[in-house]
């Protein structure tokens, strides 16, 4: 149709689509799914890191971690707000998370088992997230693009803090270095999986790329992440978590072993180490908090009514 052609022309010309503009239903639905999933990831992502807040080893580390988790909740807020411009409410999105209709990033279904994991999450997980997100600053949907610009700035700060935390571990006592290695070994493949399945198995991609909702392919970004991270591992003097990692001079990239994709699909299906506990924690927070939300709402109504009466 003309509308569709005009829409695609705008995108091709790098003109942002804004909430009041016409857009194809599929574009809207895909964006809601992608932004919702991203928002949910920020929310669920509080849990593995929150798991160590009560055990943070110094006041400074505790403060840094609290600030980081607070930022993540804030990112959740931006993204839900951006998604709301597409005509879906935060509560609707939340309920879809809680009953399993919507997903969140699978990385948060892995446990944090030692303090170095907190560093590794910042370094690897935020690192991978940024690699996914930086291109999205140029995404076609205006509110999403602007949210990503804000988020990317904070995320790269988190990544540096994470790298600093794990460097301290890698350069620390024997036990600390062992923690750092253990964290790297456990989180390496799950981080690679964050870029999604191999391009040949990835659905939705072609259309999303045309719409500039997705900018690079999964495998491109994954390679970029490996190329960036391997020298850091070497700098930290940690063992490479994959014997298959070697510099391929011909390609100008590191070769690496593909993640175990059947594990990836297991986790997506709900069989990750923490899927059940993560969703249970979020559901409990929501259910236990119902009286609070109701109470505050009732109070707001009373106040509004009193104000009306006074006018």
């Amino acid at each position, binding site marked *: 149709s003309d509308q569709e052609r005009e829409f695609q022309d705008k995108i091709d010309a790098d003109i942002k689509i804004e909430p009041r503009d016409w857009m194809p239903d599929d574009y809207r639905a895909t964006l809601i799914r992608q932004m919702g999933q991203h928002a949910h990831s920020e*929310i669920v992502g509080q849990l593995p890191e929150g798991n160590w807040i009560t055990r943070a080893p110094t*006041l400074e580390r505790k403060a840094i971690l609290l600030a980081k988790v607070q930022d993540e*909740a804030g990112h959740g807020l931006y993204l839900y707000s951006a998604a709301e411009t597409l005509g879906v409410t935060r509560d609707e999105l939340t309920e879809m998370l809680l009953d399993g209709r919507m997903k969140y990033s699978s990385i948060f279904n892995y446990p944090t088992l030692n303090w170095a994991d907190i560093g590794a999450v910042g370094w690897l997980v935020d690192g991978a997230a940024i690699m996914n997100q930086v291109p999205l600053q140029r995404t076609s949907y205006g509110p999403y693009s602007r949210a990503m610009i804000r988020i990317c700035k904070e995320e790269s700060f988190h990544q540096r803090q994470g790298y600093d935390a794990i460097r301290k571990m890698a350069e620390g006592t024997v036990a600390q270095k062992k923690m750092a290695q253990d964290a790297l070994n456990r989180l390496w493949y799950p981080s690679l999986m964050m870029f999604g399945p191999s391009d040949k198995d990835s659905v939705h991609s072609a259309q999303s790329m045309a719409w500039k909702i997705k900018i690079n392919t999964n495998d491109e970004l994954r390679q970029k992440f490996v190329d960036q991270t391997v020298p850091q591992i070497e700098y930290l003097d940690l063992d490479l978590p994959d014997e298959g990692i070697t510099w391929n001079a011909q390609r100008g990239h590191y070769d690496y072993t593909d993640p175990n994709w059947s594990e990836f699909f297991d986790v997506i299906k709900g069989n990750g180490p923490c899927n059940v506990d993560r969703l249970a924690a979020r559901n409990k927070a929501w259910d236990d908090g119902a009286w609070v939300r109701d109470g505050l*709402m009732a109070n707001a109504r009373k106040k509004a009514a009193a104000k009306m009466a006074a006018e």
Partner: protein
Amino acid sequence: MSAVDQQALFQFLLRMGDNTLVLGHRVSEWCGHAPVLEEDIALANTALDLIGQTQFWLGLAGEVEGKGQDADALAFRRDVWDFRNFLICEMPNGDFGQTLMRQFLFDAWASVTLAHLQTSSDERVAGIAAKASKEVAYHLERSADTVVGLGDGTEESHKRMQAALEYLWPYVGEMFVSDDVDTAMVAAGIAPDPASLRAEYDAIITRVLTQATLDIPQSAFAHKGGRDGSIHTEHLGHLLTSMQWLQRVYPDASW
């Protein structure tokens, strides 16, 4: 100051710092589990401020003690009997209402106390108080609003807030009991006499709790012991098992 006063000052600073440390820890337990996203953010922010204040208070405590202990050593290497926080700070979170009521009852005390401490004869104390005051003013505004919102909300939220107030009320009195340490602080012009702050405190909480349609309990009974360490609740020991875990297991590490 005399050696005795230095020892009293050390105790006074531990009291200030242990309050914020233990309460900050409790608040941080909420992370990721609050009833609504805005509250997750607010609770993390409160915890963060309290931990920040702890760094100042315990940092200064360590200096005054002069035995080479920094804030981390004091926070992570003392056992229950050496803690000097109000018992109310170590009380469990309970539901969100209990957490916010605890916060409100503490914030009101902190705002009154810090206002006085800004004119402390010890410039370091006055400086910390000035910085913390701004944060606490915001905490108090927020916790008071929430107590009002939930107290005068639904029937259920009212009932829960009243229950929280009754549960926590016996822990308020400890904030206003004076002892030798306080006498020394008053004499040195460092800090006000806690007993003298009760009227200001009561004015704040009466205003807010009335607006929240909550009944202030009549009982004057007060649990004591946290502030001088003579007794704590069983809760503190469990809190320390998490809080101090890494420092205790890996004493040679730096983080």
